[in-house]
């Protein structure tokens, strides 16, 4: 169970109607269905992952997130979830607004480009960062719109999006000491490699 999935579970109401963008093999959706009795759909574009999810009894619809959410009516879901896909879409700002059109709340996770390891890669080595959260080379990465926590929060402010909760996690290092955890809370933009946000329209 991924750390950000555990957190997403806390912020989604039981029996909620959920849309999972970039749902992969449906791991999170399956977990939410069992744990919280949610209903809903996953959107995915990877053929093998879609088949795997269908074989697991989930409702998965093949769709490119770059095509937007026009097929869904306003407020047709309680929560839209998007785990680590924001940085890979063509227009993250438009998609974010679209998510908050089709649902009351959005739970979003994305890798933090300002993580200290990335800063070392770029600042000291002078090379594009490669890490557990960002495992690609510059020439083959699907992550075309990377941002930092600060960048994301600025975007939210510009579009009157209210941040209900946020949580910075570091899943590249297992078993943090309480001190390290406290430090991550203090300086997430430097120390956390993944963020999870729960946002809503103001």
């Amino acid at each position, binding site marked *: 169970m991924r750390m950000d999935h555990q957190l997403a579970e806390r912020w989604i109401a039981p029996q909620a*109607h959920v849309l999972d963008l970039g749902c992969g*093999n*449906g*791991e999170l959706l*399956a*977990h939410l*269905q*069992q744990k919280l*009795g949610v*209903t809903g*759909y996953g959107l995915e574009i990877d*053929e*093998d992952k*879609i*088949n*795997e*999810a*269908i*074989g*697991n*009894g*989930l*409702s*998965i*619809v*093949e769709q490119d997130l770059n095509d937007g959410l026009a*097929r*869904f*009516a*306003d*407020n*047709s*879901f*309680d929560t839209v979830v998007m785990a680590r896909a924001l940085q890979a879409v063509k227009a993250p700002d438009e998609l974010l607004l679209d998510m908050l059109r089709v*649902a*009351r709340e959005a739970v979003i996770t994305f890798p933090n480009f300002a993580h200290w390891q990335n800063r070392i890669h770029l600042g000291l080595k002078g090379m594009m960062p490669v890490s557990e959260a960002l495992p690609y080379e510059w020439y083959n990465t699907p992550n075309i719109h990377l941002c930092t926590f600060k960048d994301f929060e600025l975007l939210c402010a510009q579009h009157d999006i209210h941040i209900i909760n946020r949580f910075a996690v570091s899943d590249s290092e297992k078993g943090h000491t309480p001190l390290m955890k406290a430090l991550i809370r203090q300086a997430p933009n430097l120390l956390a490699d993944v963020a999870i946000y729960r946002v809503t329209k103001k």
Partner: protein
Amino acid sequence: MNARSDNTSDQHLNSQPHTNSSASIDSTTGSVGVVTPQNFHFAEPLTLECNRTLPSFDLMVETYGTLNRDKSNAILICHALSGNHHAAGFHSADDKKAGWWDNMIGPNKAIDINQFYVVCVNNIGSCFGSTGPTTINPDSVGSDSFDANSSDEPQVYGPDFPLITIKDWVKTQAMLSDRLGIDVWHAIVGGSMGGMQALQWSVDYPERLKRCVVIASTPKLSAQNIAFNEVARQSILSDPDFKNGRYIQEGTYPRRGLILARMVGHITYLTDDAMKAKFGRDLKSGKFMYGYDVEFQVESYLRYQGERFSENFDANTYLLMTKALDYFDPTRDYPIRDYPSTVAKDTTESAVQIEDSIAASVESSKANAQSELEDAVTTIEDIESDRQQELSALKAAFAHTQCQYLVVSFTTDWRFAPERSQEIVDALMATGKPVSYINIDAPHGHDSFLFDIPRYMGAVKGFLTAPFITPSRPATGERS
């Protein structure tokens, strides 16, 4: 072959999602072997949507696999326009030609007969043994008033066979279900026109199926679809040998009409690219002959396919089948109330008024180029309003369905394009129904649904064997 009596597929998932081994097809797939069709006679009268009644009817049926004790492993296969009950296996040991969906149905195949009991029915109106235009009209038996030329000879229905709808077929299939003692189908599966039957089942008998697989299909035919069907029909109707449909009595056969009809239909099943790859501009004799005989390979192919088809198919059946396609509309029983103004306007406008309005619009666009732009804007608005109306109608039809859906389209299918499948998916999602959708990248156009494409077969297999975990959500309006 033993059916699994401990069918686990409907149990609730109570652990972490597992990787389903069925996602890929086992290499030890096989044939269902030699099969024998069965005839089921229904002695009771059947009232059809057109308000005519068949006094009795017969259905030709093939089954594969074994029905389990609680009759919970049955899968119904619905055939397409030219299909029949022979979906898999062979009719004899020397039979070279397997059933039309043999790559889908068999031991360890996507529809695994080791696990499921599979039923395929030849629909009424067809020409493969079920009651249709080529079977004897009971009204003609023992009656000399039927046809002055034919004395007391029993006559086939011919053109007197009533027009059939998809809904009628589903009704007869439900009657067959009763006969077989199958209260609830594990799944109903169909491609193209078969997909329409599966969809209609979910609307008409929501409690009688758990899964619905709609492949390369559409919520209803477009004007272009109907136009192609009309060309096919006119080809048959205008053949001098058609004899108003009484060609069997007259001792003729509208072969040319049927060949033409199939040729035009066949083009719509393929794609430009597929035809280019298969034939290009290749010439049969290598040079131009400057005549109207067969020159290009594609001409030769189309004529051959048409001729072969005309030998095995009945012209009246072809006419009837295309009409059943045109009539298909699962929303017919669910009139919507939300959009009264535009609907009323469109449907009450007479042909004369439409002609007048076309003439008027031609005049006005001559007079003012600006109005053309306005017309274009109005058209876009109309299209969007039509789309919303269509969605509302489908939502109304799907509101009370209870099954899980798998909708499959193929990227190069232009007869029933992926967008048409997506209309079904959007309406199902808007009503909160469990639905999965895949758009398979395949080069064969509409015909793709008959091809053995691993991803397609894997998805069907995964869907049919998946744990049943998604609860159906009651239809709701906007969430606040």
